[in-house]
């Protein structure tokens, strides 16, 4: 076989393998979710772990989230303000910033921040436990790794993602206000009124629903990669990288479908 043909076949082979892996992982995530549901009743027993995970996901990513939100709001305000000013509609900046943040940007960007800060840490932590036989040790002590590791993380991210999104929206709107006031010369009150007009109930709850779904999916994907890690230290790196890529893809794909479901 000619080398070019052989290389081409290898590329198709790799693509096919990757597709099969994604399908297998998706199935594993569904199974993991189903297996986690019975342990939701143990939430009081695991309250300390859940609160610790909430602290790690919420408080520890507070600063990063704030900086990203502030600048996202500022960029949105500046870009839309420049265009709207040409049509004499600069006063609508607050409306646009709010609508964009609540509908899409807050759940999406805060999810990206949390994938980087929290999801990767979850995958790395569980993968390290897997390759150093700690998960096996839990199994041998008849302690379910799902109850012990997955459930607290799933519950924590389920609540923290929507909260992060709300917080992201507030800080983003504030960032937009700073640019609107100092760069576009829009008075605070005018911006505030536009913000209130830009807040739509449907957009807000769909945005929160997205965050909630992202929290569930990201925690499951990262736990799944961690639990399936192998090959020692290299496996920990692979699991972390793959979990970040897969979570990112999931956020994009699910984000689109949820939007299409409610607004399409």
């Amino acid at each position, binding site marked *: 076989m000619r080398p070019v043909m052989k290389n081409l076949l290898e590329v198709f082979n790799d693509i096919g393998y990757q597709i099969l892996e994604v399908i297998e992982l998706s199935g594993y995530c569904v199974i993991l979710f189903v297996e986690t549901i019975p342990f939701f009743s143990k939430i009081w027993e695991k309250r300390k772990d859940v609160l610790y995970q909430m602290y790690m996901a919420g408080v520890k990513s507070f600063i990063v989230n704030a900086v990203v939100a502030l600048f996202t709001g500022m960029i949105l305000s500046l870009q839309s303000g420049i265009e709207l000013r040409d049509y004499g509609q600069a006063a609508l900046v607050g409306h646009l910033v709010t609508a964009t943040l609540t509908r899409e940007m807050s759940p999406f960007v805060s999810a990206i921040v949390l994938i980087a800060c929290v999801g990767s840490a979850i995958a790395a932590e569980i993968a390290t436990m897997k390759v*150093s036989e*700690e998960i096996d040790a839990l199994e041998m002590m*008849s302690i379910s790794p799902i109850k012990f590791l997955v459930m607290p993380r799933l519950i924590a991210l389920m609540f923290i993602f929507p909260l992060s999104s709300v917080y992201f929206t507030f800080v983003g709107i504030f960032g937009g206000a700073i640019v609107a006031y100092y760069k576009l010369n829009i008075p605070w009150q005018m911006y505030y009124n536009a913000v209130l007009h830009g807040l739509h109930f449907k957009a807000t709850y769909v945005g929160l629903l997205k965050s909630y779904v992202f929290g569930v999916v990201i925690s499951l994907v990262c736990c799944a990669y961690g639990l399936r890690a192998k090959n020692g230290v290299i496996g920990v790196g692979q699991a972390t990288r793959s979990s970040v890529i897969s979570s990112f893809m999931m956020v994009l794909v699910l984000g689109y479908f949820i939007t299409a479901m409610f607004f399409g």
Partner: protein
Amino acid sequence: MIELRNVTKRFGSRKVLDNISLTIQDGETFVIIGQSGMGKTVMLRHIAGLFDPDEGDVLIDGVKMNGANRKTKEELRERIGILFQSGALLNWMSVAENLALPLVEHKKYSPAEIDRLVDDKLAVLQLTDAKFKMPSDISGGMKKRVGLARALIREPQIILYDEPTSGLDPVMSEVINQLILQLQREFKVTSFVVTHDMRSAYTIADRIAMLYQGKLVQCDTPENIQNTANPIVRQFIEGRLEGPIEVRRD
């Protein structure tokens, strides 16, 4: 009693365990020796129910471990303690919390009883001073001893040891050897030990078996193993380069 019936395990095309049959009686200390990567730990993990064989069965006290549902496995594992090669301690918990974990999770003991049991096991393994230390603050040998203390905390009938003396100084190795002997004498504990340490093997074993290329090439008493005519076993126990064992230099 531990039984392996015609157990075969493949990883890819490689047969790691090839039709292994073995019975370990109650109260017996069975030591398995062999080169690294020959499948000793794989055999131990089959007994623990962490691996299922491709063919054959693993039975603990007559109950099939492979393919068993979660409840049956949990019941069987209540009788089994395991010491992993690295100790497998949870890094975010102190030594005492690691030991108490199985007792706390299963809620069969009061906090005072748990504390007493933890103190007892720490004393047996000379770890009292390390009670409140974190795993990252103790040496590899100490981690191994904490792992062993955790394996003992539920007072199991069967203990699986994966390289119990590797990384320990000779004195501490002897402490572990004596502990294994004491557990057998006083509590009739059944032990399955994976080791390279021949001195330890001769001290603790009732029977020693050598695993080579997926098969048990000899299974005998320590005396017979020491005086064996089997060239594979002879080469291994004497640590010679020349002989039928292929020395991989990769």
